[in-house]
Structures are given as C-alpha cells and as structure tokens.
C-alpha cells in the first residue's frame, strides 16, 4: 500500500519526501483547495520546484483542487488545473464534477482522483465517476466500516485510498455547511472550516470561552487544556445531556488496522494534516513508513509514540468501527 502524505509548505513537502512518502499531496495558495489557510500552500513556482524534488527521489505529487467552483469564477479552477498539469502533477484530486468533466475533456491523459469531498460512498457513485470522468482512484468518505470498504472494493473499477491518521471529520465531507452557517465561510466554497478569522477566546470568571462567529463552541475550566473551536467538536447542550454532541476532540488513528485495510482492497493510506508543521509531518510520515514496512508484532511499539502527536492525545477509529455510529 502507498503512503500518501500532506504538505502545506515547501519545507514540509521536502520532509515528507525524505521521510519516505510514496506520494505527497498539496494545493495552490487560494480557494481552489480545501485547506485554504493563511500562510499555507504553494505558489506555481514553489510547486514546480517541489515536483522536481519529489521526482528525483521517486515520489509522486498529487494536487488537491478539491473545492467547488464558485459560479462565474470557474477560470480560477481551470487555471489551477492547467498549471498543475503543466507542472507535472501525477494526479489531480477533484471534488466538483463540473471540474472533473473539464479536466477529463481537456487533459484526457491526466490521472484523476476523486476527493473525499465528493462523498462517493457506494459502488454506483464511484462507478459513475469512473465511467463519466475516467477517475482512477477514489478517496473514500469517513463514513464506512472496514467491511463496508471490502464490499465496495469488490464492486468498483478503481483504486481505493482511505484516511488512516490525523484530523477527523464527523460529518460526510463535502456535504457540510455547519461552518458557513456560523461564519459565512465554508469548506466547499472557501476551502476553510471553522476559520481562525472568526475565532475568539474570552475569559469568563474561571472559564475560558471559545467562540466561532457569534456562537460559544466550548468552555474550559482552569484545569482543562483549551482546544481550537472546530464546530463539530464543541460542547453543547442537547436533550438532557451536556457534552460533545457530535464528536469528542479526538483524532483518527487506524494504523493498527493496516492488515485489515490491505485485505479489504485498499491501495493507499492517507495522512491528514496539510496545516501541520514540518516537524510533525517528518515524525508522522517516518513512523508510519516504518510501521507499514514492519512485521505486525513490531508495529505496536512504533505506533505508540504517535499517540503523543495526536490532537488532545486521544484517538478514535471513527467510522471504521461499527460501534462509532
């Protein structure tokens, strides 16, 4: 199985390549990709240099153009596709099927991957994207169990890539407008979720309050470490309960299921984290590379150190495990 690694900066990109990534994915510095954060991503020139560096080391580069084209401004996405192809991207990761159609028609030789943001969660959906646009690989939404994936793999005609480590969307990706409901900025349209521009922290008595737009997302007593107010990982009042209504502040880790994923028919394992620094990328990629190449009995010790890097140091297998639902 391939290891697909994130890079938000040229420095992180080189770290990922050096640490043993089979492919690195990244995006341009604008709203064409779903990690459109200040200080992140690549200019055309930086991307060209990164691809050259990766090529020399035998690593592939995937370019994420995985937001939905804003009506009337499609040229921004078309130009990004043109430049990614020209610079030698090994694959484009796309979510908008208008853009998929454009790429399939204009650059028929270009390898096309279906982004997790497209929410292709079943055989009819995946095969549609394969037939209509020649998709070669699908990144599956984090809504499936490992046995769901195995069943799907038998019925589709393209490769499967799944997220195994890092941030975790609770909602079906590409189909969530919670962030724009609170802030006006959304993953689909602006490439951001719970954007820092709308985050505020304030002290209220003994508690630190985190807010997104006009809404309180969490309150932390003094003894508790405060987390970032990602909307779906906030604490709310629901029914008679007070707590994490959608998901705890956890991150995804299913690296202990590598063998089951391989048997299920998965071709590539993906690490989330284009917003992470180069030290994090280097550590995670090199550890997961070793784990992937190690014997199953040696993996546990390797993976234990990664727990420390995870958000809140707590992890979940998410939807891969049936009980999570």
């Amino acid at each position: 199985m391939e290891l697909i690694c994130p890079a938000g900066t040229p420095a992180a990109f080189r770290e990922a390549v050096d640490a043993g990534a089979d492919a690195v994915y990244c995006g341009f510095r604008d709203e064409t990709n779903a990690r459109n954060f200040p200080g992140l991503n690549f200019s055309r020139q930086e991307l060209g240099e990164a691809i050259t560096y990766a090529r020399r080391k035998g690593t592939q580069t995937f370019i994420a153009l995985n937001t939905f084209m804003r009506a009337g401004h499609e040229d921004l996405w078309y130009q990004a596709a043109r430049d990614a192809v020209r610079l030698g991207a090994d694959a484009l990761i796309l979510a908008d099927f208008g853009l998929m159609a454009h790429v399939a028609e204009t650059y028929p030789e270009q390898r096309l991957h279906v982004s997790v943001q497209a929410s292709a969660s079943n055989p009819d959906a995946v095969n549609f994207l394969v037939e209509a646009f020649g998709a070669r690989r699908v990144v599956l939404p984090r809504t499936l169990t490992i046995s769901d994936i195995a069943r799907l793999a038998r019925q589709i005609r393209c490769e499967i890539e799944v997220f195994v480590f890092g941030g975790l969307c609770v909602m079906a990706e590409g189909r969530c407008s919670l962030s724009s409901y609170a802030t006006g900025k959304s993953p689909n349209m602006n490439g951001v979720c719970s954007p820092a521009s709308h985050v505020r922290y304030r002290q209220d008595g003994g508690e630190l309050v985190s807010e997104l737009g006009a809404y309180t997302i969490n309150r932390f007593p003094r003894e508790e470490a405060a987390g970032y107010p990602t909307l779906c990982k906030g604490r709310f009042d629901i029914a008679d309960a007070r707590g994490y209504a959608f998901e705890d502040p956890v991150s995804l880790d299913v690296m202990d299921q590598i063998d089951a994923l391989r048997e299920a028919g998965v071709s590539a394992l993906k690490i989330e984290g284009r917003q992470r620094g180069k030290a994090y990328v280097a550590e995670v990629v090199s550890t997961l590379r070793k784990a992937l190449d190690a014997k199953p009995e040696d993996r546990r010790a390797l993976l234990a150190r990664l727990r420390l890097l995870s958000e809140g140091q707590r992890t979940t297998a998410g939807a891969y495990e049936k009980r999570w639902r």
Partner: protein
Amino acid sequence: MNAAKPTLTLGPVLYLWEGEKWRDFYFRIADEAPVDDVVIGETVCSKRLHFTDPCFPPVIERLEAAGKRIVFSTLALVTLERESQYVRSLVADSPYPVEANDLSALALLEGEPHWIGPLVNVYNATTARLLARRGATSICLPPELPASSIAEIVSATPGIAFELLAFGRMPLAISARCAHARAKGHIKDNCQFVCKEDPDGLPVKTLDRQSFLAVNGVQTVSFTCQALLAELKDLLACGVHRFRLSPQDCDMVAVARLYDDVLQGRLDPEEGISLLRQIYPAAPLSNGFHHGQEGAAWVARARNIGHGAST
C-alpha cells in the same frame, strides 16, 4: 422562461413522523395546500422506511386525485448494501420522476428525466449543465449558495427549471454517526428510533444557552428557519420560478397559502414575514446564506438588495 408561472414545491418530510401523523399531514396537503409538486419519501435514514411504507398507497392516491405532481425522494447518504438496493429499486420501479440526493441516484438516473435535490453539490453552471445533459429537468440548488451564484447559474443554464429552499430548517450536514441516538444514550445500530420523539428536530444549544442547531437522526439542520419572502420578486426576475417549502412541525397549509399569496401579489412580503413568525414561532427566521453572510443571519429589508446587479 420569464413567463413561467411561479409554483410551490413541498419538499420531503425530513423528520421521522409516525405513520398516522405522516399520512394525515399529506391528506391535508392534498386537500388544502396550494402546492403543485410534492417530493415524497424518506431522505435521511434508511432505518425509518418501515414507518411510512404502509401509508404510501393511500397518500399517493390522495395526492394524485388532488392533481399534485409527485416526485420520489432518495436517500442523502448511501453506504450499506441494502441502501444501494433500495435506491436501485426505487429508480427502476418508480412511476414518478425521482429526485437524486446523492451520487448513486444521480448515476442510476442517467438518460431519464429526473430532479436534483438540494443535497447534491451544484455550485456552478458547468455542473448544472452537465446534470441537464444527463437528464435532469429540475435542480433545487443547495441552501448555502449566495444570490450572486444563483443568478449566475440560472442565466448560464437554459432549458432547466431551478428551485430554491424558501421555507424550512436548512439541512447543514449528514453523518454516518447518529448524534440524535447518542444524545439519548444509544448508538445508531440500536437507536430505538428515538428521533421520533422530536418531530421538528432536537435542539442543540451552546453552553451559553444560544439556540444553534437541531439534530434529526444522522442529519444536522439549522435551528433557524430559512425564509425567502422579500427575495421572491428578485428571484422571479432572475429566472427562478419554483420555491420549496420543507415541512416543519407547524401548519404547513398556512405556510403554503402565505407563500402563494406573496407570489401572487396578494400579500406584501413584509407582512408575510410577520405572519410567518406567528405560524412557525418555534424557530427564528434566517436568510443569511442568500445574502452572502453566515447562514444563521437575518437580513431585514432584503428587497432593497438587488440580485442581478453583479451580472
């Protein structure tokens, strides 16, 4: 296109209403509500299908007798084999047009006239035209779209009917996990159908007691109710002629009459807004997405904000 008569569509009931309540709701819609099209069928959770199945034949019969055009809805999230089978058989056997709410239905409907629901990501005219070429005759655009995008898509996609969510809590997210079951101490596989206890959704409040969201099984909807009333005139001018009313647990016949009155020029939109607040007092109104702001916002005097200005 501009000469088309404006019409109302009743969207599918997104919540779990038990058999009789569901049946009686549609009987009354058939008899009294000025809606032309009725989109019907489970959209949120495949586990709920057996609640309404027995009531389908009499409801369909009553709606047809009343001259309503019927469209069958499909599931928003299809992951299990039996969910795939359900969508396949619905598409294969439906005597009525089918509305696609995910990519599987979209794929299966190629080549036959069909509708696209608001849960399919249509953010630009390239995508809308692609869907039209595949057989879509009607697209209900996603609630998140601002007016500028709507105007652009509609003007660049001739020959297809566009619809907008004009009333109802907005669908915001869907998950493999059931937050509704979780809130009541269950997991999805053993949910005991607790979502039927909340026919208008289960409110989610912030720790500072702000009303924020509502959960409806695996779906999360806005706490606010989308209300496009002052915007209708501009929308008609830019080529949108169909407006969707999404059923909430209130007098939907009154809601339909109110929208019909505004569309026909019998009722001033501002008066309509205050009447709507009385008909559905449970949720504050919002129209923020339409005006390019946060979805929960309410932009008053919206009629002064032009639509076609940017195009």
